[in-house]
């Protein structure tokens, strides 16, 4: 081998070593932020969950019946409704793992090369609490003034699936809210409702939540719900481009006797979206067996994701 050429390459490494290396946390933050911006450019959305449970009874009119929905309170604490899963998350619980914060640089590198010298980087700490502004506001034409912070699950039941990532929840807040179609008069019966939740996970654990949700759907193609004689079928759908990653699935069952169009299925959609270490879920639950409209769900999903992104900066 040419020693001279090897010498030139050694000189090249000296030149290259003069280039500053960014701090790894800065690289991670940059990557996550850029991904969110890219998605926002094409129409981002929040997690939407559609369940098979009519939600009218769990909502209450606000004082004036038309004002923008108030921010949700903390995690609810009452028993979950039929056909739902994931008990209310705890209030602010364990803080983010200290092991993920600014680890000591490792100097052990193979081939005798030295570790890069990280340059200073100022990054925002991961969120530990969910402010009111993290929750989206419905478009004016969709507002009903109905919102509740009553306790309840944030995902539908999936054959009793359990989610180990729940142990990594830092904080969760959830609400239920009803919406109407633009053509529906104010004060009329709503056209649908959402169960909307926002959950902060410990750094790096939010994608576990989505992975576990996908697995739960795959593992539960059919199920019976308590107090429901129908068989529900579940399947994953193309999630679309929402946040850093997302999960979309449907729950489908024939309408009960006398409900819906003859031969039609009652379909609920659930979409969960991860944005950094935050997962937001929008579960469209209908209103007295109304059918969910994908366009409405998508539009509100975009609003929900936009609110999360604005909050996270």
């Amino acid at each position, binding site marked *: 081998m040419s020693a001279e*050429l090897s010498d030139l390459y050694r000189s*090249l490494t000296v030149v290259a*070593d003069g280039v500053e290396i960014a701090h790894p946390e800065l690289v991670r933050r940059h990557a996550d932020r850029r991904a969110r911006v890219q998605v926002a450019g094409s129409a981002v959305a929040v997690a939407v969950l559609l369940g098979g449970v009519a939600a009218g009874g769990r909502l209450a009119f606000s004082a004036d019946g038309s004002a923008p929905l108030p921010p949700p309170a903390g995690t609810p604490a009452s028993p979950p409704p039929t056909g739902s899963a994931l008990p209310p998350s705890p209030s602010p619980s364990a803080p983010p793992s200290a092991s993920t914060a600014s680890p000591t640089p490792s100097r052990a590198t193979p081939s005798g090369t030295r570790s890069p010298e990280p340059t200073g980087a100022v990054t925002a700490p991961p969120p530990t609490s969910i402010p009111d502004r993290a929750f989206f506001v419905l478009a004016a034409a969709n507002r009903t003034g109905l919102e509740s912070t009553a306790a309840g699950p944030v995902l539908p039941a999936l054959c009793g699936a359990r989610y180990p990532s729940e142990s990594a929840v830092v904080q969760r807040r959830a609400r239920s809210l009803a919406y109407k179609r633009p053509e529906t008069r104010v004060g009329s019966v709503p056209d649908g409702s959402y169960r909307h939740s926002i959950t902060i996970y410990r750094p790096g654990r939010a994608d576990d939540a989505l992975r576990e949700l996908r697995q739960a759907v795959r593992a539960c193609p059919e199920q019976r719900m308590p107090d429901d004689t129908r068989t529900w079928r579940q399947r994953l759908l193309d999630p679309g481009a929402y946040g850093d990653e997302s999960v979309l699935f449907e729950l489908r069952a024939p309408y009960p006797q006398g409900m819906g169009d003859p031969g039609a299925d009652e379909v609920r959609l659930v979409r969960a979206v991860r944005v950094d270490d935050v997962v937001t879920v929008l579960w469209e639950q209908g209103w007295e067996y109304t059918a969910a409209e994908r366009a409405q769900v998508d539009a509100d999903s975009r609003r929900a994701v936009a609110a999360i992104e604005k909050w996270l900066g």
Partner: protein
Amino acid sequence: MRHAQSFDEFYRSTARRMMRYGYAVSGDHTEAQDLVQEAFARAWRQWGRLSEHPAPEAWLRLVVSRLANDRWRHLHRWRVMASRSGPPPTAPPPSENGVLLVHALRQLPATQRQALALHYLFDMPIEEIAREAGVPLGTVKSWLSRGRSRLAVLLPDVHIDELEANDVS
């Protein structure tokens, strides 16, 4: 699961080597910074799976190579345009061998730059380069041979041995 700590450790142990590689294949400081940062950003985006990859650093080099090739094509078009109307390129300081080499490498095809960098920067045997590039052994030998022959022409003041059979096999 995307474990930030394991990513940071991976980053700290590989970023410097990756910067050298990026510099060798792109021939530009700023380009190398951009390439390497982009490659690590892509790595972080799928760190949950990549952290279990048997050779994440090889994956990273592949990304850097592809990004460099893309940029190289764009730059090449720009240089052709500049050569028609702009000033001649600035001559590098003769004492800086690394800069001399980089300027010479810019005249080589991307595949030859990549093979030379893997061989001289990472001490990779031919078989490993072939595996990483996904090409036959003979192709790698050809890249190295032609690359060095071309460098011998571009760097007349530097002695570069003729390629020998046992050098790359």
